[in-house]
């Protein structure tokens, strides 16, 4: 059987952005797990170690992009899954704006903590 199952309407902007962020996240999520569980053991993570990693601009930018794309991909996935399960009308509008606000708060908080770590290496 060659049917393709998805919560997304193929060809739309939401579908395309979900695929573009997916291609980025596949690589960065694997890198994140590998770096923080195999190269560095999670139990050995410290503020100074994290601050030293974040002091590298390439790492900092990658992590902020990781935060933004993961938030979009996750929230867009949840939203489309709910629509696929029949969410419509006023409920759809309420869920949409709750997710938009939650995403904005998550990104702001994530950037704040990334900046705290980046500036955390003692002079």
């Amino acid at each position, binding site marked *: 059987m060659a049917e393709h199952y998805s919560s997304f309407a193929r060809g739309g902007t939401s579908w395309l952005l979900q695929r573009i962020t997916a291609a980025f996240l596949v690589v960065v999520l694997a890198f994140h797990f590998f770096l923080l569980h195999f190269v560095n053991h999670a139990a050995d993570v410290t*503020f100074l170690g994290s601050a030293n990693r974040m002091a590298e601009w390439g790492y900092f930018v990658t992590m902020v992009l990781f935060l933004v794309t993961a938030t979009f991909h996750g929230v867009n996935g949840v939203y489309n899954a709910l629509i696929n399960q029949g969410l419509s009308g006023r409920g759809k509008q309420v869920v949409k704006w709750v997710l938009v606000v939650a995403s904005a708060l998550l990104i702001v908080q994530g950037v704040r903590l990334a900046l705290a770590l980046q500036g955390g290496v003692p002079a």
Partner: protein
Amino acid sequence: MSRASKGYDRGVIEDFGRWREFSAGMWAWIFHKFTGWVLVGYLFTHIAVLSTALTAQSADPATLQAGEDTFTQTIQTLEGQALVRVLEVGLLAVAVFHILNGIRLLLIDLGVGLEAQDRSFYASLILTGAIVIASVPTFVEGAF
């Protein structure tokens, strides 16, 4: 129009009373949604825990050097619990499956491997299992 974009009536897939009728593609879709919900839930939790960095940044250099700041202490306390380590193995399983099945979905969307989509789903499951089992020693080291 490719076969992949052909419309069809799949009924209410969330009705698990129909689980015996589910094909490999339907299971892949359900697993992808379930792992997606777990990952987005974890993302919010992860940022909340890491937010202890906002308090730790004002600690003096000696406290940071000794690892006695809020951030380090929070992470090391959590990592010291066996339950957290087991949950992390579960998170790894969820993330690896979502990544592998995600690659499978990207390829299918590009028209690659649609006719083998059931076999590539089974391959995603087997590879996830193999990676998770191989990673267990690293994840639980020092916790038991």
